[in-house]
């Protein structure tokens, strides 16, 4: 590592600390600038068929002035605006329409939120505490150790600097939370309150919002007034984010000595978290919807992220609608298909891996080609064939088809596994008088167990999740596997989402668990078979 003089280190650290301090001051300045602008329409008056300055106009104007005065006396800060629209009436005369608006515009800095008792006040408090704490900790962490290179810091200074970084990071993350919480109270809660659908405790919140916006001025219908309030987040609040980010960066430099590596690692974590949330989102939806009541699933104004009541009886209801039977069918189908696929696949893979014979490559090509023939393209052919074999509408027919179309994968995966195991043991056994069948069963199969289990589960899952062939072939309800069975809950005119997802949940959980077990082995198997083949 390059030797750095303590003066250089001192200079670098000092620069970082000064930058952080500047950003801290900037953040405080930004917090003092207006963060939100609220404008409420208090009174509107339209006057038609008039010109600016004529009799009607003056009359309307005086009416508006009177209204405005009344609001002024109540303590509102009002402005009057007028909008003139010209138009030609049926007689061909040009007249104009004047619309007067009495409105009140307030803009508040973030400090104002602190004492307002709104939900966002706590968030703002947390932001301030984090920023202040971060600054204090950074100073404490830098005291007396300014000339020490970051990798030779003592435990205490390092911990303090590290904590400063985390606090700055949390403050940064809380800024959008602050905005979201505000939007939630000012827009969603107010709308619900005005339309009479608010949850408990909304009265209190509305009172606080009213007091926050207009002091004690408000009387009359609070919901109506608040629902006319338009609000705007100003740039200063958004500017807080880059400022805090720069502060975080300078603190990171103080802690780690370099920025790029830490930031790229942070970006990676953010990517992973975002990806995980996106992937888990449908499962969250399935889970919560499966336990909601029918009215809640189709309620436009349902506003909770979780069911208000967990309806466990959904599970009982779907059992009454035959879901257990479908699950049973799926189990029979998947177990049967897997068994057939393995009984046919293991010998074939064994021969492919251990024996020399003419036409081996032809067979391998055939196996690879059969991947291309998805059952869906062949639907018509398959249904004709099953009719002739009298296997349509039976689970046995489905088993055979699933087994056949999974042969290619099974042989690929198994052959790859067998090839990765040395054949010496089997050869020794054969010299001792074992025949090939015994060599396979006694020696190779136990050694290849992980690969076999992977293949087994993979075929099982494919058969379990298969949908298209089953819809075409199975018409009797009691023979349907679960994937087809759940579609009975969605007809053209009504979809019973809660039952659909409750049964989907039952169909998914076991498979996801199985899949997680083989995840490690699967990827390697999938490609190795293809690459080597």
């Amino acid at each position, binding site marked *: 590592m390059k030797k750095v003089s303590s003066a250089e280190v001192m200079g670098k650290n000092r620069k970082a600390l000064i930058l952080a301090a500047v950003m801290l001051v900037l953040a405080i300045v930004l917090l003092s600038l207006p963060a939100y602008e609220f404008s409420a329409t208090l009174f509107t008056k339209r006057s038609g068929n008039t010109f600016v300055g004529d009799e009607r106009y003056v009359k309307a104007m005086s009416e508006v002035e009177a209204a405005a005065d009344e609001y002024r006396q109540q303590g509102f800060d009002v402005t009057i605006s007028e909008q003139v629209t010209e138009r030609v009436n049926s007689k061909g005369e040009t007249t104009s329409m004047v619309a007067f608006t009495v409105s009140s515009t307030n803009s508040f800095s973030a400090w104002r939120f602190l004492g307002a008792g709104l939900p966002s006040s706590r968030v703002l408090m947390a932001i301030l505490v984090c920023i202040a704490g971060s600054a204090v900790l950074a100073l404490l962490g830098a005291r007396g150790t300014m000339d020490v290179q970051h990798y030779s810091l003592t435990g205490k200074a390092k911990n303090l600097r590290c904590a400063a970084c985390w606090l700055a990071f949390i403050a940064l993350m809380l800024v959008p939370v602050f905005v979201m919480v505000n939007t939630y109270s000012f827009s969603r809660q107010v709308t619900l309150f005005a339309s009479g659908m608010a949850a408990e405790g909304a009265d209190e919140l509305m009172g606080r919002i009213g007091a926050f916006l207009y002091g004690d001025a408000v009387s009359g219908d609070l919901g109506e007034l608040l629902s006319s309030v338009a609000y705007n987040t100003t740039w200063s609040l958004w500017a807080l984010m880059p400022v805090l980010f720069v502060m975080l960066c300078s603190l990171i430099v103080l802690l780690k000595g370099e920025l790029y590596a830490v930031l790229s690692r942070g970006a990676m974590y953010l990517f992973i978290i975002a*990806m995980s949330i996106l992937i888990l989102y449908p499962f969250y939806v399935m889970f919560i919807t499966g336990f909601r009541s029918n009215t809640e699933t189709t309620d436009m104004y349902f506003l909770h992220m979780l069911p208000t009541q967990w309806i466990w009886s959904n599970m009982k209801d779907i059992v009454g609608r035959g879901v257990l039977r479908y699950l049973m069918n799926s189990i029979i189908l998947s177990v049967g298909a897997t068994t057939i696929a393995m009984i046919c696949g293991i010998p074939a893979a064994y021969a492919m891996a251990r024996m020399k014979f003419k036409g081996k490559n032809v067979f391998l090509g055939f196996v690879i080609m059969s991947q291309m023939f*998805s059952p869906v393209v062949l639907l018509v052919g398959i249904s004709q*064939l099953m009719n002739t074999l009298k296997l349509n509408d039976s689970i046995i027919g489905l088993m055979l088809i699933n087994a056949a179309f999974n042969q290619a994968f099974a042989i690929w995966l198994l052959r790859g596994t067998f090839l990765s195991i040395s054949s010496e043991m089997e050869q020794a056994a054969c010299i001792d008088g074992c025949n*090939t069948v015994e060599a396979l069963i006694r020696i190779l199969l136990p050694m290849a167990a992980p690969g076999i289990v992977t293949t087994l589960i993979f075929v099982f899952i494919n058969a379990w999740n298969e949908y298209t062939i089953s819809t075409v072939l199975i018409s009797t309800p009691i023979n349907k596997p679960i994937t087809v069975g759940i579609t009975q809950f969605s007809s053209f005119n009504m979809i019973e989402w809660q039952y659909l997802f409750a049964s989907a949940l039952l169909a998914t959980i076991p498979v996801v668990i199985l899949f997680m077990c083989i995840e490690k082995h*699967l990827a390697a198997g999938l490609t190795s078979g293809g690459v080597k083949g």
Partner: protein
Amino acid sequence: MDSILVRHKWEPYVWLLPSIVLMTTFVIFPIMIVFKLAFSEISKAGIVGGFVGLQNFIDAVKAPAFGPVMINTFIWVVSVVGLSTLIGFIMAMVLNQDFRGRKIARSIVVFPWATSLVIQASIWNYIIKFEYGNLNNVLLNLGIIKEAINWRATYQIEFMWECGVGIFVTIPFVTFCVLSGLQSIDAAYYEAATVDGANFWQKLRNVTIPLVMPSLTVSTVLNIIYVFNSFPIIYTITKGAPANKTDTLITYLYMLAFYDQKKGPATALSVIGFTILCIVSGIYMMMTMKKEDA
């Protein structure tokens, strides 16, 4: 590869026999039936008549829905395979890093792969409902939007959502194929590249991509086949409505065969789809084999 003592010349064929019987009955026969039907006259009641030459193909191609359906199929395959390969590749690169919680992240990525397509499609169908869908609910609750958005205003947008769901469920497969390729790369290559002063992009272009190419090829070819043949997503979300405007070849074929009872044109479409798949996969295989030889 050492051969075990095989006593008779016919023995290997006995080992292969069950597999061959199974696949011939349930893969080869349907293919033959489809090809036979495609060139035969079929009545509405499903009675197979004599040889009619290319009449079924002409009927299938002349149908007004055929052109849009082929275009949709093309968009569907290219966008789903292309984007899922790109995103899957990036995710595999990330998951190949060493970080805390890596095992959990890998298990989570498997989730969409393990669910049945019809279930996954039903969930998304619910999520993007305008009136009570969960996406609007969540966004409203988080305060990101102020009023409900109609996420499926036109059929083009609905088709885009279908492509999106297709990408969503395809990513895990690509990720795991590429991941296995990445894990087999010897770390020495990267060390050598670092010594030579290569930056991230140079390493990516000259070390990573050439070495994961075989895995990427396999996953892309298999993906083209799967995505081309994918049925439940479109069937669940739009059923091809309105008027076949969101159909791909497979869903169109299904509707023709089992709703409209036009088995003749449907089998002709099967043969067409089949041929396209063979050609595309063949070209891709040949191209990559050439590259590997060179």
